[in-house]
């Protein structure tokens, strides 16, 4: 079996790693709430995924691409200056920003594109918020010569211009979505509409650990390479596991990829949601702090919604976290208390963004800056013998315009 994959069996009988069940449920969460037109292809994806899950040949191929194309393993960096600056726990950064295309998204894209090819699909669609998943998808499509359509909310097209141009350079067609607030939720609606219409030849390469089963489980499995590598790297560096592991949560793929291999270990896990202007305002993306369970985009999970079950617009300075829901496994880990979820507001993320630039010479993605902001609060409260592992899910080149605008700089 492949070491990058955390298959359920690895977890033992009462392990939290044994989910989902065969209905795609993590406790009550998850499932496959899609229109009948899509059900047959969803089942087809599930069968294909089960086939490759423990297939040595598939994993040998995937590992080859991850090593030679993506550049894995990604480094584990002891952030000594940040540690000194905060004056508490030792901070290690898992450098997903160093991957080809600059974020963790490519891990799952690589796996899914190989799956789509196996399934004989000849056209790829995806949704994107920050554009990182769109870029990663366009990249793997270019690599395999497959046509690619990326749906992106019109607001996001505006605030993530560099990534839009990148996708176009890579040969993708970027379709701006005007509906709603023009953000990730609207892009996902439109991608699902495309899939329903072109289901015969199209694979929907979902960008996060959400959507109908098997996507939450499959994307997680492809992202577990993050946690598995970090575990081994930290064992080598420190001879032990971290005390705390922290990641930002949009849909939840980088976080679950980091957390899952640690679920059965004595490691405190903290997911950081985007608080936006604050969880007591209506400009927030903190689905766990402010939402309740419901059904959207194929899964039952926590959602920002009003009393009538209408979905509310999320807000975050970071396009990649600007979504009114999150993957079902996080809802499950929230309710059973295994993972703690905290909100970080726009201004706190901006501050952490600038801090990392200055003290470590690393420009983080605004998404990852949410995780870092929580580290700046937590580290000083812990002893110097404690270790915090934080997922630096992506690099921030794409965000410099947003940060400039928010700090009053005209580029």
């Amino acid at each position, binding site marked *: 079996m492949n070491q990058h994959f955390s298959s359920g069996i690895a977890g033992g009988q009462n392990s939290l790693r044994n989910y989902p069940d065969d209905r795609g449920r993590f406790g009550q969460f998850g499932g496959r709430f*899609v*229109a*009948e037109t899509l*059900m*047959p292809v969803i089942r087809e994806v599930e069968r294909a995924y089960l086939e490759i899950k423990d297939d040595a040949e598939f994993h040998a191929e995937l590992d080859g691409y991850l090593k030679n194309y993506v550049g894995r393993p990604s480094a584990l960096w002891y952030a000594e200056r940040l540690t000194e600056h905060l004056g508490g726990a030792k901070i290690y950064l898992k450098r997903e920003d160093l991957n080809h295309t600059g974020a963790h998204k490519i891990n799952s894209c690589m796996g899914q594109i190989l799956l789509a090819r196996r399934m004989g699909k000849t056209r790829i669609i995806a949704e994107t918020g920050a554009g990182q998943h769109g870029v990663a998808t366009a990249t793997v499509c270019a690599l395999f010569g497959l046509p690619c359509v990326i749906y992106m909310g019109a607001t996001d097209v505006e605030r993530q211009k560099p990534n839009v141009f990148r996708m176009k350079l890579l040969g993708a067609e970027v379709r701006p979505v005007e509906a709603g607030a023009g953000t990730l939720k609207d892009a996902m*609606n439109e991608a*699902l509409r495309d899939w329903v219409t072109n289901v015969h030849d199209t694979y929907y390469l979902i960008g996060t650990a959400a959507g109908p089963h098997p996507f939450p489980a499959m994307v997680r499995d492809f992202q577990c390479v993050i946690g598995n590598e970090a575990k081994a790297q930290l064992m080598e560096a420190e001879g032990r596991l971290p005390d705390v592991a922290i990641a930002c949560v949009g849909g939840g793929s980088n976080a679950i990829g980091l957390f899952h291999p640690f679920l059965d270990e004595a490691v405190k896990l903290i997911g950081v949601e985007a608080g936006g202007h604050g969880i007591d305002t209506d400009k927030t993306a903190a689905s766990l702090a402010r939402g309740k369970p419901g059904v959207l985009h*194929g899964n039952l999970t926590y959602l920002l919604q009003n009393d009538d079950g*209408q979905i509310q617009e999320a807000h975050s300075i970071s396009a990649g976290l600007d979504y009114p829901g999150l993957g079902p496994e996080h809802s499950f880990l929230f309710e059973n208390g295994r993972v703690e979820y905290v909100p970080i507001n726009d201004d706190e993320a901006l501050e952490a963004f600038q801090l990392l630039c200055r003290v470590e010479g690393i420009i983080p993605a605004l998404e990852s800056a949410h995780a870092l902001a929580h580290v700046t609060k937590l580290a000083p409260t812990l002893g110097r013998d404690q270790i915090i592992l934080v997922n630096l899910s992506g690099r921030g080149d794409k965000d410099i315009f947003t940060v400039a605008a928010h700090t009053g700089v005209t580029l």
Partner: protein
Amino acid sequence: MSRIAARFASLKKEGRGALIPFLEAFDPDLETSQAILAGMPAAGADLIEIGMPFTDPMADGPIIQLAGQRGLKAGATLKGTLAMVRRFREADDRTPIVLMGYLNPIVAYGPEAFCQDAAAAGVDGLIAVDLPPEEADLLAPHAAAQGIDIIRLVAPTTDESRLPYVLEGSSGFVYYVSIAGITGTRTASSADLSAAIPRVRKFTDLPIAIGFGIRTPEQAANATEIADAAIVASALIDTLARTLDEDGRALPGTVDAVLDQVRALAEAVRGVRVAA
């Protein structure tokens, strides 16, 4: 016998198929949509489908998306939609009403409470677009307890190995989604429908309604020749939308424009005689 079963039984005796027009609740406002609903039976509606507005209607094209947005802006809620049905029932106790929508508002209402209140209001059937048979247990037991039919969707992608599974828990009628796609875009050819409907018929005795892509009286008539009912949605909403002023408000001709179109569709459907 349920209103839906009774209506299909009497149409069978008449030797014709059913016209099922669709309206979106509160589109563009409560008064207008209540007036359209009230006028539909006299205009020739045999059953009526009411759309329950949702912020994220993933199976709908632009026409119904906009209708839902107008409805929400006008204050549509599930409670408000049920109140529309209750008011309709004061004058009409025979025409079956089917509510169509997405799951989340129902989950927020509480599936059990919703089915109780819907039955009390006079609702006969429910279509939840994003509730495939795999997840039906969320709603089906509560609907059954209240005598509400759960109308299942069958799509061109539903193959013969899956059909029995999909049809097993169906009641009322079967909704054949005639194209792989979203509402208000393409239209299935008569040849496609003639091949598809007998394939579904092999697995069910329920009436079969064809929806998605039926726009004209000819297409509606054709659908009832091949199946048992024609569902017309986007074409009617398109007509309604064209009558609205710049701010999306109804004008004096709005209700009549929609009902005239229902009449034209009904006339065509009634012109088709099928073997009883």
